[in-house]
């Protein structure tokens, strides 16, 4: 919508005539030194920690170090505009970002300004980026599932709404792919009128990567319930440092209004690196791997804000999927161990599996979900119960197959079952599975109904079997979808359908 020039003039005239100003004493400081996106400021006596500071020329900063005679601040903008001796004002607030439904479908920077060229964002709601996490009374246990649409995760490592599940792995193992698939899978919930809003926070990513994510989400019509917060590799370190907090503030708006949201931090390793840079420039003492001493608190206070709220507070939830990139499979580095201990479980991705064609490359043995089990539907719990065990046994026996040795019948059977389970858990990118389909196929494989299908044909079998179920077993699938329970009737129905289909399948 275009504004006419005369309207603007009249509005401006009104604003100017109504403009009243109260002169007041302000506490100010002067810039002593500036450089590398940090500034040291003399004065600012009443300044509080993490207070928003205003520099001349419109650049903002955050006071991080309060010292005897100076204040150390990080700059959220170009440090080139700031000169020694300029006046700095404290604002008495901490930095806030715009939040609300108007943000959906937009790409914004770390301070909530749109960077997608789609014009200003019309929201007057602001939230401070750092607030305390909900306390014990305000929470309740995780109980509703957050469907990722990925068979291996929804069956073995279920994620509940309000949970924090770490995704960890080397570069190029499909960490982001899992998150994007999860966002795409929320479309069904959105269309059904029970949306899970998604926030994707890109920290220190290449702009091209962020663009690819946006394009993918647009292609799958997932942007309308998604906000993307981007602090890319070329942004200043302080912006990368605050980006996850801004994203969380946007998610909390949904959580605190009784809705559900999912936030993805991609990735917290780069976030820690940005914070390390800022800390070292502020001359805070370095610790292990040169990270500052409060790096654990940095992540724990961030992830604590993801929660399932009590019914009294509206029952909203914020689920977090933090990503941590490991270097050459080193899970025992400082940041990965920190975040593993903060989160409610982790999904391990391994490059060996990835290159062996197991995609998503989830290591089922090392991945856990500490609280998601309560959120799993009854039917899924039933079919997935033996899945993890079967897979573990298969991994143990797998070595034998490589020798080509003679095996007894039961061992051979276990290996056969395992190979088919592995095949079943493979899944293409951008192909989220509906829960009932997941249950049906895992049921078939787990019960040994497809043990006589050749391994190479399992994927084709799966595809056609699901089509067959949709047309020939509508009743069973409908009960599975609505009741989410694997009653004996449903189990029998599935078994019969599978036997019948196998006769057709060549």
């Amino acid at each position: 919508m275009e504004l006419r020039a005369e309207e603007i003039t009249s509005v401006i005239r009104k604003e100017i005539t109504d403009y009243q100003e109260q002169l007041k004493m302000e506490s100010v400081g002067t810039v002593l030194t500036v450089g590398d996106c940090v500034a040291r400021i003399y004065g600012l006596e009443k300044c509080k920690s993490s207070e928003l500071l205003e520099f001349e020329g419109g650049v903002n900063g955050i006071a991080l170090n309060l010292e005897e005679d100076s204040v150390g601040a990080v700059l959220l903008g170009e440090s080139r505009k700031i000169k020694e001796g300029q006046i700095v004002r404290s604002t008495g607030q901490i930095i806030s970002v715009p939040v609300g439904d108007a943000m959906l479908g937009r790409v914004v920077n770390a301070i909530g300004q749109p960077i997608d060229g789609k014009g200003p964002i019309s929201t007057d709601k602001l939230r401070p980026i750092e607030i305390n996490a909900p306390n014990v009374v305000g929470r309740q246990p995780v109980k509703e599932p957050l469907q990722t649409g990925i068979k291996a995760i929804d069956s073995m490592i279920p994620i509940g709404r309000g949970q924090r599940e770490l995704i960890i792995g080397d570069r190029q193992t499909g960490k982001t792919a899992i998150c994007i698939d999860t966002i795409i899978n929320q479309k069904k919930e959105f269309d059904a009128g029970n949306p899970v809003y998604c926030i994707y926070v890109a920290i220190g990513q290449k702009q091209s990567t962020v663009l690819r994510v946006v394009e993918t989400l647009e292609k799958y019509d997932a942007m309308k319930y998604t906000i993307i917060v981007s602090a890319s590799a070329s942004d200043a370190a302080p912006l990368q440092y605050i980006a996850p907090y801004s994203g969380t503030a946007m998610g909390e708006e949904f959580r605190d209004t009784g809705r559900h949201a999912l936030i993805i931090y991609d990735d917290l390793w780069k976030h820690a690196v940005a914070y390390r840079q800022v800390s070292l420039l502020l001359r805070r003492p370095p610790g292990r791997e040169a990270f500052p001493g409060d790096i654990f608190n940095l992540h724990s206070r961030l992830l604590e804000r993801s929660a399932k709220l009590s019914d009294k507070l509206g029952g909203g939830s914020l689920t977090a999927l933090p990503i941590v990139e490991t270097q050459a499979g080193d899970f025992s580095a400082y940041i990965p161990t920190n975040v593993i201990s903060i989160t409610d479980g982790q999904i391990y991705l391994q490059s060996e599996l990835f290159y062996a064609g197991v995609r998503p490359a989830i290591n089922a043995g090392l991945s856990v979900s500490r609280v998601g089990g309560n959120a799993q539907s009854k039917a899924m719990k039933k079919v997935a119960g033996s899945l993890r065990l079967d897979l573990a046994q298969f991994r143990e026996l797998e070595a034998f197959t490589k020798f080509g040795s003679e095996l007894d019948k039961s061992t051979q059977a276990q290996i056969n079952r395992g190979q088919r389970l592995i095949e079943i858990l493979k899944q293409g990118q951008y192909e989220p599975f509906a829960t009932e389909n997941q249950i049906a196929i895992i049921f078939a494989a787990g019960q040994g109904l497809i043990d006589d299908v050749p391994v190479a044909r399992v994927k084709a079998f799966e595809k056609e079997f699901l089509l067959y179920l949709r047309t020939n077993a509508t009743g069973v699938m409908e009960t599975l979808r609505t009741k989410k329970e694997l009653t004996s009737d449903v189990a029998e129905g599935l078994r019969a359908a599978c036997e019948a289909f196998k006769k057709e399948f060549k």
Partner: protein
Amino acid sequence: MTPLRVTRRYVQGVIEAAQSEGKLDAVEQALAAIDAALQENKDLRNLLFHPTISRARKKQLLRKIAGDGAPGVVTGFTDYVIEKKREHILPSVYGEFREAADALRGIMRARVTAAYQPTPDQIQRLKAQLEQALAKKVSIEVKVDPALLGGMQIMIGTYILDGSIAGRLGRLSKHLQEEVGNIKSAA
């Protein structure tokens, strides 16, 4: 440690010594003379900060600048500063000293920046107003900066009262930008 913090420690020592001898004003004058010389004379600064020039020469030089009548506190201080190789604090000593001495005397220093040179009468009235508001003695330093367009800025310590036209226009412009942003987003 920032040079500022070092200066503060040294100045604290000087001021205590000066006070116990009751020579606060004399010390201040001598320090002012040194400061003025340092401000004006770049060569002098280079000389003082030069690493190969002997301490004895530097001490002698500073004694000369301080003048024959300088109190012992000042010469003792300059000698000690040179001895400890803290020459770099010298340019900031006078400002710190004056501030601390003013605090002792119960005087607040207001730095007034105005667009035009105010008349003595205006300064008197401003002083009276400020003294009334702060319930303290106020001494006023006036600076002229035509960039302010009109009105004045008063700075007391780290507090600022900005009544200049430039400052008010800046705030109005910020306010309008915010308003226009709101209108645009509402449209």
